[in-house]
């Protein structure tokens, strides 16, 4: 076998954690703290991380059964049916675009705090232009750079957290009393947003030096992120007033300024830029390639499958994501309702994780003899708990936020209709009909010039 198995555990962890770490994560972390009394955010974040470990186990089994970059589109299609898989995938990609919109708004707020003379709109458009240009030209962020950003970021956050906790003498107020079960459930539900995207590492399954590294890397990434987020959030709430943090779209800057003054602001701007660049790039790559692949199978109009003849990148799909992202960012800039997008992503991610748990159970029943190099231990306990808990968390987010349930429901209904009514029309209109198989007679390899090695 000549598989290119070169990726190590270090890169798998960096990829999984790097896709997750974003500037908007700090906003979600403050949201988590906002639900709870005292300094108990760490409890909700660690609980969210623990639940995500269950979801990570389910994704590991799904990926071991069906190792493919098509991801949830394939898992849910095999486990349930293609239409449901397509509806959920389209909705998920729409939500990812929303996350990119929220991320650009938060990063623009961070940059505006450092350089108030430049309006946020200028930052937003500049960032989108840079990342879109990089994507159209096919420039990649190298693996080593990804490792450096991720580990540098996590290390910096821990150092900042310890400096802040040192300044307040590690005085925490009621670190074990969250103040009610409902508040805690809501905090955990929003805390799930902190881990959004850890499962995007699954397409690397057959490029790693050992097949178990992806599941191990995902679990370690979620564990590391839980510790970093928990410490950083506790440090934020211990050293700044909760009102000031909640009121700011860039709470990490408020925190950094309080702890280290202007130097802290500079440090945080660099960290936020590093965190956002990987998230932007990952979001733009995954959504544009999904749009391209969907257009190639006539789920979307074929125009979206156009490629640049110079750079071989799907430029129409990339420009579509650019246009959608800028539009979302402008709406957020006008309304300042970026938290709706954070909650929307938390709810959608919970739905996807719940379906992942159900998909594991369903595939075990449907294909008991199928090859599966990795199985979640303990029978159906972990998948069933994952499905139940994340379904509950999705309901909790939707129950407490009217707009989230409204947008998610409207999105689901529109896409369900689209998949049932429009996709069959597109397929019948554009899908080529081949008259017959063009299979040629078998050629003699030696005569035809094929070398044997």
């Amino acid at each position, binding site marked *: *076998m*000549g*598989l*290119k198995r070169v990726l190590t555990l270090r890169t798998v962890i960096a990829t999984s954690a790097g896709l997750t770490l974003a500037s908007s994560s700090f906003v979600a972390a403050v949201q988590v703290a906002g639900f709870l009394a005292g300094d108990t955010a760490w409890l909700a974040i660690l609980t969210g991380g623990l639940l995500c470990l269950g979801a990570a186990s389910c994704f590991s089994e799904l990926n071991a059964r*069906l*190792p*493919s*970059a*098509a991801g949830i*589109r*394939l898992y849910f*299609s*095999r486990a349930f049916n293609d239409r449901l898989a397509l509806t959920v995938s389209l909705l998920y990609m729409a939500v990812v675009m929303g996350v990119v919109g929220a991320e650009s708004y938060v990063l623009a707020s961070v940059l505006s705090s450092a350089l108030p003379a430049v309006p946020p709109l200028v930052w937003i458009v500049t960032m989108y232009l840079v990342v879109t240009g990089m994507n159209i030209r*096919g420039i*990649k962020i190298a693996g080593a750079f990804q490792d450096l950003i991720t580990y540098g970021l996590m290390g910096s956050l821990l150092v900042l957290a310890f400096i802040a906790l040192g300044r307040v003498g590690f005085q925490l107020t009621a670190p074990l009393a969250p103040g009610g079960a409902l508040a805690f459930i809501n905090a955990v539900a929003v805390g799930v947003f902190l881990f959004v995207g850890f499962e995007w590492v699954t397409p690397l399954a*057959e*490029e790693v030096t050992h097949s178990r590294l992806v599941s191990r890397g995902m679990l370690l990434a979620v564990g590391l992120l839980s510790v970093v987020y928990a410490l950083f959030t506790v440090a934020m709430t211990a050293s700044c007033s909760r009102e000031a943090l909640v009121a700011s779209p860039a709470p990490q800057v408020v925190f950094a300024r309080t702890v280290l003054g202007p130097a802290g602001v500079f440090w945080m701007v660099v960290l936020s830029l590093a965190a956002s660049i990987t998230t932007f790039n990952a979001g733009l*790559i995954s959504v544009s*390639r999904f749009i*391209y*692949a969907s257009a*190639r*199978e006539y789920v979307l109009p074929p125009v979206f499958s156009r*490629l640049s*003849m110079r750079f*071989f*990148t*799907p430029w129409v799909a990339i420009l579509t994501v650019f246009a959608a992202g800028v539009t979302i960012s402008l709406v957020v800039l006008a309304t300042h309702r970026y938290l709706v997008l954070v909650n929307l992503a938390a709810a959608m991610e919970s739905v996807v994780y719940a379906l992942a748990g159900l998909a594991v159970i369903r595939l075990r029943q449907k294909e008991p003899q199928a090859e599966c190099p990795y199985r979640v231990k303990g029978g159906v306990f972990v998948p069933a708990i994952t499905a139940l808990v994340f379904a509950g968390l999705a309901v909790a987010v939707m129950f407490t936020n009217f707009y989230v349930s409204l947008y998610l429901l409207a999105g689901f209904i529109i896409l369900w209709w689209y998949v049932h009514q429009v996709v069959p029309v597109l397929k019948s209109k554009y899908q*080529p009909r*081949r008259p017959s*198989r*063009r*299979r*040629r*007679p*078998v*050629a003699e*390899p030696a005569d*035809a*010039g*094929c*070398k*044997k*090695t």
Partner: protein
Amino acid sequence: MASHEEITASLLAFQEGYNKNERLKIMNRDWDRVVLVQANDIPSQHTLELRNGELSVREGAPPRADLTVIADSETLADLFYGDITPTEPYMNGTLKIIGSEDDIVRLDFISLMIWGE
């Protein structure tokens, strides 16, 4: 199920289609890649090598591949003959392509340029 010889023949048909297309050769002159094509139902491995825009086919696996294409023998033969596009078997899990997303898109593009939709 297709035989190893049928996969070889389909790859040679693919190579022939590629080499007839001068535009494609110019477009790929800076895309040097080694592609392993492997069947998962019969013992069959081939190497496609793109070097300076020229495509060559060899039997057997390369020491190291940039891109790996894995499917059942029938799908592979259909794919390289241009009877099917890569998208549908890729999305339903029959065809696995291991490599960077940009390389996958480029392979899809080459197949499109040789065989059309």
